[in-house]
């Protein structure tokens, strides 16, 4: 049995953007908002490499990363501890991510700007559901 439970899968559909934090070797943290943390299997996720940015640079010198993902149905959030493993520029994970990114781009007016260069594959070290970060839906004035 892997680290990622089935119930986390809706949080990896790219409906609500995710947050990712990395750290350079000189100790400077970097925070970014990304379209999707892509579910690969119960022990791995992929992040898109679209531009050579600080996240891409950081994990190649310090592989540790954390991601915060949100389930769009329940709005529960999860913290993932990740470790960069390798990068793929072809194959089923790359193709599926590429198609997904094109779809997100076309729906958010970013066609031609979002373009997948590689799928960065991370090993998931832990996945923890946050239980104290939501106000019960019944308490919200709708």
């Amino acid at each position, binding site marked *: 049995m892997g680290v990622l439970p089935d119930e986390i899968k809706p949080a990896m559909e790219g409906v609500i953007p995710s947050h990712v934090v990395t750290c350079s070797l000189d100790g400077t943290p970097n925070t970014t908002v990304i379209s999707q943390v892509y579910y690969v299997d119960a022990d791995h996720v992929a992040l898109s490499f679209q531009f050579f940015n600080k996240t891409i640079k950081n994990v190649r010198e310090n592989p540790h990363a954390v991601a915060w993902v*949100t389930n769009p149905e329940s709005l529960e959030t999860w913290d993932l501890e990740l470790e960069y493993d390798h990068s793929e520029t072809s194959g089923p994970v790359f193709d599926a991510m590429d198609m997904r990114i094109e779809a997100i781009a076309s729906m958010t007016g970013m066609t031609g700007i979002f373009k997948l260069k590689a799928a960065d594959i991370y090993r998931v070290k832990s996945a923890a559901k946050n239980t104290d970060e*939501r106000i019960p839906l019944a308490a*919200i004035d709708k």
Partner: protein
Amino acid sequence: MISEKLVEFIHGPVFMALGTRNEKLRPAHTFVVGAIVNQDRETLTCFVSQSRAEKIMGNLEDNGKIALTVGSPSHESYQLKGHYVSLRPTDAKDVAIQEIYRTKLVALMLQYGYPEQIVKPMILGAKYQPAVAITFRVEEIFLQTPGPEAGKKIA
């Protein structure tokens, strides 16, 4: 110094994510509900739920390095980097800022056409109290809007 234009953008409102790291260079994430650029325009105070803040207090005391991403639904975004200055419980004025922030963010998302049945629970359902006010000195600012210029240092 944070430019007038960026102050307006940050108070916009915007979505925010705070990053810190520990002594072993392991990063940590914290979500933020409300922030205000202080009058000196060199420090920024952001509001973080107490439970989330407890996870990063050690990082703030160990090295104090902070990165804050601020982004709008238009995709325009910036990253502010600097060093921790102080932490205190939120007061009534802070809570008022948080409540204005939440209301404005819902209105902004509705303007962008996101459905009310998603936007309201997503934004208003995020626990924002009890919270602490974390102040940090902004030393560098980077453009983070998606595109080839992302990562460019602008201040």
